[in-house]
């Protein structure tokens, strides 16, 4: 099997994924009724990335062959899908939706920056503990659960930073601290994986080569088991760190240029959670 064959033939049209993505789109266009083009583009991009991460060869490779590709899959879910979906939600809808007291109450707890940060960190940290990671790899149901948890906690994490409702957003200083601590956690985890001894994730050291592509990966692509784990850790450490960094810098520049906070405090809207029903 060549690389070309691999990319063309190993698409895994898992019905649950396709139904899920379809449902996301239907819900969006039927209930949310977006009007701004860039929001629609963001949302659709989020769904497409989700689809690609879960059915394309990325999924096959990450389930059976390469730790590093599995890392890419997780990073896509956490750092691309969730933020893009949040960016796709129009402010009007968010305000209307959160106007219901019960939902507002849930949102208040879930998007509390402490709760959200810790939930995201726990999800990321615990699922990479070898015991849990290997268990998820061996059991398809647990694996799906793992991905769902990543999506949910990542959405919780990104909501205070990216929410369309300006009033719910963290202030610039708090956002910088929030993102900086997250990037630290993420980098430390990445550094640990990069320098950890081989064998934490045994399924990738000696993959069961059902498709017969192991020689292609090991010889043609030149990714040994050692390099694979190192690359996985590095992807988490550096490129993922850069995403946090660019958001921090973006926050600082936006705050410095004062596009949104020049309003005197009194003029700022006094919308608070749960008060939109009236």
């Amino acid at each position, binding site marked *: 099997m060549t690389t070309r064959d691999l990319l063309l033939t190993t698409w895994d049209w898992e019905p649950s994924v396709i139904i899920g993505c379809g449902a996301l789109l239907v819900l969006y266009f039927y209930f949310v009724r977006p009007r701004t083009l860039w929001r629609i583009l963001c949302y659709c991009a989020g769904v497409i990335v989700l689809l690609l991460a879960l059915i394309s060869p990325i999924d096959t490779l990450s389930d059976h062959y390469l730790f590093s590709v599995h890392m890419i899959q997780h990073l896509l879910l956490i750092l691309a899908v969730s933020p893009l979906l949040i960016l796709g939600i129009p402010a009007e809808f968010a305000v209307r939706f959160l106007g219901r007291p019960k939902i507002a109450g849930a949102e208040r707890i879930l998007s509390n920056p402490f709760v959200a940060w810790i939930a995201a960190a726990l999800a990321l940290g615990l699922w990479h503990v070898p015991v849990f990671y290997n268990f998820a790899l061996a059991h398809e149901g647990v694996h799906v659960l793992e991905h769902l948890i990543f999506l949910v906690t990542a959405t919780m994490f990104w909501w205070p930073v990216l929410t369309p409702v300006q009033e719910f957003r963290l202030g610039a200083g708090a956002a910088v601290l929030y993102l900086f601590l997250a990037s630290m956690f993420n*980098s430390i985890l990445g550094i640990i994986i990069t320098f950890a001894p081989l064998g934490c994730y045994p399924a990738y050291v000696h993959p069961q080569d059902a498709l017969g592509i192991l020689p292609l990966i090991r010889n043609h692509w030149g990714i040994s088991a050692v390099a694979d784990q*190192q690359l996985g850790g590095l992807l988490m*450490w*550096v490129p993922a*760190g850069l995403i946090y*960094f660019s958001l*921090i810098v973006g926050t600082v*520049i936006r705050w*410095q240029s004062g596009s949104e906070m020049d309003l005197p405090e009194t003029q700022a809207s006094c919308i608070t959670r749960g008060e939109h029903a009236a």
Partner: protein
Amino acid sequence: MSEVPVALPVLRKLERFEKEAGMLSWLASVDHKQIGILYLITALIFFIAGGVEALLIRTQLMFPENRFLQPDAYNQIFTMHGTTMIFLVVVPGLLGLMVYLVPLMIGARDMAFPRLNALAYWLYAIGGCLLYFSFFAHDAPAAGWFAYTPLSEKPYSNLQGMDYWALSLLVIGVGTVATGLNVIATVATMRVKGMSLRHLPLFTWMSLINSFLIIGAMPALNAALVMLLIDRQLHGNFFRPAAGGTPIYWQHVFWNFGHPEVYIMVLPAFGIISEVIPVFSRKVIYGYAVVAGSTVAIALLSFGVWAHHMFAVGMGHFLDMIFAASSMLIAVPTGIKIFNWIATMWGGAIRFTTAMWFAVAFLLMFTMGGLSGVMFAVVPIDWQLTDTYFVVAHMHYVLFGGTAFAVFAGLYYWFPKFTGRMLSETLGKWHFWLTFVGFNLTFLVQHNLGILGMPRRVFTYPDIHAWNVLNFISTMGAYLLGVSVLVFLWNVIRSRRRGEIAGPDPWDAWTLEWATSSPPPVHNFDYVPPVRSARPLWDLKHPENPDWQRGGRTRAHVR
């Protein structure tokens, strides 16, 4: 009045004490201005020491097979030169500017913790003496400024030199952290009413970011030094391969400090340039928010690229690849800044004072240093050129062509504020051109030497024609640099006594330090003008067209 009334009697007392105590007041002072001057003078003394060491190095390398210095002495001298210039000159010199200027720029009376400030200075001064005391103990450190293990371990450096080195850097490191903490607390809590963080002068903004770098990076050095000392003094095993330790761990910890350190040495320089260029171009800095934001980007990235100092270690293909990419990325925010400064000068009414000459030369020289830095991010080039004179050239273009030029710009700009008298412009121009020519003569040719394969840190070299010529040119340039420093010293000494009287605001500048007399009184300000933008003095001088009314600071206004 902006002073808290309760403090006034205390201030009077202080002022009287300073008058009565005379020179003695310098020993006991907690005034940020006196401490800033102490920092600068001490750094200048060590600069002369480090400069003499540099001249010794260049004299030894003037001819092939030279026997001017013995190999051991040569190793000691290049180690002391590097250590001195980095830890005793550049960093404390910049700290001196920071503690002198930051309180003035934000309209404060002093640092948040004046006594901590004094403690930090004395730790530095004593630490510096500790390092130089090693000469009297007949064994200066000789393992290079980054003291790679196992060379710096007991079996290979068995006299006391490395112990002096580690101890003195530990003492200085603690002091540096203290000043970093102090600057953060000062900027966070001592700003005059109206000065939001978005109205900070860029020098203060960069000092703030720099302080975060300091408190994030120096602990790594301190940890490394502690481990080295435990190995050397208590027979520990951290970096001893025989006991299972990894000498590479030293490199990881050291460069975790070492790379941010590069930016610790350059961010305040960026701050100086961001003050000098707008004032002498008569224009607002172009893109304040972007200059400020890219500083944060540099600070964050600087913690994520340390492994590029270790490409030669053999860390693995992917590690090299990823760090090569992230190291190239760090050039982006730096490049953005260069463009911002050029855009600030563009169409401005430029006044070519000595400060401005140095600032413009900084742009050129630093860009060259930056570009050779990007070359090193390419792993094969790094493998080819690492530990050659190309590295020496790159590093000096960043630290001398970059930081030192910016510091000279800053000294010509702020000397009137420090002393009340102008530095001579005539001598200044001589100083500038001698420095510029001498610097390029010394270090430009070292790029070629490196490409021709001459390794760094060798005490002599075989008789190879190209090497001979280039080394000779480089040494001549170094002597010229030595002369330029003498001109500068003469300028300082002469202007201190007989320079033109400056008055409070000789450059028609815009930040708060120019709103008080030169030199400022002990309590800094009798009256702090209202702050409603990043240029409070512009607003004061131009009530018809103040910055805060226009809203955006980024729009350029030529006067």
